[in-house]
């Protein structure tokens, strides 16, 4: 185990690429968090009764704990290596930075994923206090819940950074697509916090979904910087959406049966989290691939328009909702175009920044 995690210059023969094990544990933890979230949302809409220790909640806690402990292990092992004067391999989570002076040497990717997990604990206490004051509210977009979701998102950003370092290797490429796709799907819940903003005519949640999906899609595409990069992230999100579409209502019903609880009257069984993910994202990914040669703001704006224009159609298709008032629809699509353009530019820049994490031979792979 130590051999794979620490970055010694002269490693013995190995069967698993160096760095793959801890990176997989971190991204695996984030996936467990995502599974817990989709299950928990479905539980509240279809069944209801809640305690601190429901299985979906345990998945949420376990996801951050797994990612956090793996990050901590890497930081401690890197620190130990560094103190013994051994060379630290920057391929494992990026260059090591000093924490608390030079007390710890932390690879930057693992530092970020670990900070996210530590924040999750702090916001767990904040959430506990909140529930004491406001009751056991099942409101996904309460301030402490958004704090918890943002903390998990930071761990997910750390996971993207860890894999971005190894992007020149096959496992790094797949890892970037998986970690970025997980972050994108998860962010579609975090944007519900935007309901707290006064949007006027604009549907702030739809525009927020468009902004974050375009930005993360571009980020993944520019980290990978190869044809099919955006499509890979889009496919990961589509697979997560399809699997959760089946899993969320199924797991909820199985867990309700196991605990002897009935489904709510009028429970519609519509998958909650998967339905927050824009089905049109795959179209955006295709558009980004086709418009590759153009400045990033153009495909970004196209992506923003596609997502905001299709969001009400998805709701009509899945929930049988009514089409929104025309002026609200037009204002939302216009805001989607502007913020999509910005997201395209930002996502491109973030992707290029992430490429800098690697001890890259830029001439060998562009």
């Amino acid at each position, binding site marked *: 185990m130590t051999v794979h995690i620490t970055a010694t210059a002269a490693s013995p023969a190995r069967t698993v690429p160096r760095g793959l094990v801890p990176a997989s544990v971190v991204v695996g933890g984030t996936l467990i968090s995502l599974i817990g979230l989709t299950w928990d949302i479905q539980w509240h809409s279809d069944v209801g009764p809640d305690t601190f220790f429901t299985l979906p909640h345990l998945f949420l806690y376990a996801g951050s704990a797994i990612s956090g402990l793996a990050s901590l292990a890497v930081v401690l092992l890197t620190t130990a290596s560094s103190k013994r004067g051994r060379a630290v391999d920057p391929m494992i989570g990026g260059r090591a930075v000093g924490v608390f002076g030079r007390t710890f040497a932390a690879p930057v990717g693992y530092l*970020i994923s670990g900070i996210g997990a530590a924040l999750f604990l702090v916001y767990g206490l904040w959430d506990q206090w909140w529930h004491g004051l406001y009751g056991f509210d099942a409101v996904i977009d309460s301030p402490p819940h958004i704090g918890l979701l943002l903390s998990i998102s930071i761990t997910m950003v750390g996971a993207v950074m860890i894999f971005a370092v190894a992007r020149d290797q096959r496992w790094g490429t797949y890892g970037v697509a998986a970690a970025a796709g997980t972050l994108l799907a998860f962010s579609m819940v975090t944007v519900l916090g935007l309901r707290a903003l006064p949007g006027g005519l604009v549907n702030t949640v739809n525009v927020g979904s468009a902004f974050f999906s375009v930005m993360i899609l571009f980020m993944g595409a520019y980290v990978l910087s190869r044809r099919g990069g955006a499509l890979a992230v889009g496919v990961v999100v589509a697979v997560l959406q399809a699997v959760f579409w089946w899993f969320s209502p199924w797991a909820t019903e199985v867990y309700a049966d196991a605990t002897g609880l009935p489904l709510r*009257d009028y429970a519609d069984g519509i998958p909650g989290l998967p339905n927050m993910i824009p089905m049109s994202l795959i179209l955006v990914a295709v558009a980004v691939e086709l418009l590759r040669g153009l400045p990033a703001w153009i495909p970004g704006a196209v992506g923003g328009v596609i997502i905001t224009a299709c969001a009400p159609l998805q709701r009509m298709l899945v929930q049988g909702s009514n089409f929104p008032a025309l002026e609200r629809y037009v204002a939302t699509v216009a805001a989607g175009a502007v913020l999509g353009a910005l997201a395209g530019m930002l996502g491109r820049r973030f992707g290029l920044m992430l490429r800098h994490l690697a001890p890259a031979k830029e001439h060998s792979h562009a």
Partner: protein
Amino acid sequence: MRKTLLGLLGTAALLFGLTTPALAFEPVNVVHTEKVQAGPYDLTIGFSTWPVKAMQSLDFTFAPENGIDGKKGTLTLFRGSVESEDSPLARHPRKREVWGLDIFALPEPGTWTMRFDVDGPAGAGTGELKNLQVMEQPGPPMGLSWAISTIPLFGLIALIVVAWRRTRVTVH
């Protein structure tokens, strides 16, 4: 390897062992009731906390005098005179013999109205619980709560700004 597997199994057993007894859900404790006459139906509205405060979640129960069998209906909420939402009257998940709303919060302070449209063997009837006073939310102002809760976002933005400045020359 064997030790790791045993350790994992032990952890899983411990988690599930702890989870099962903890799944005893809180009963619905009605501490205050109001009466509403919806045509031929006497409804008793129960509240699990009283007085009601904005954003504070509680259990509401809606109990017709002779039970809910053979009856159905709709609950419509109004804040002042503005309709907030309507939904079919559904059984309370933790008190299945009556209708209700579980861990539900009214979002804003002010005067709320609950309108019940009930249909059953004795025909249809409508009744309202008027002047339900919802007090100010407890706890810190929402601005402060949001400021505390979005610290991770601003931390992430700060990280991005630092990374942006450090890579400015090389990216272009």
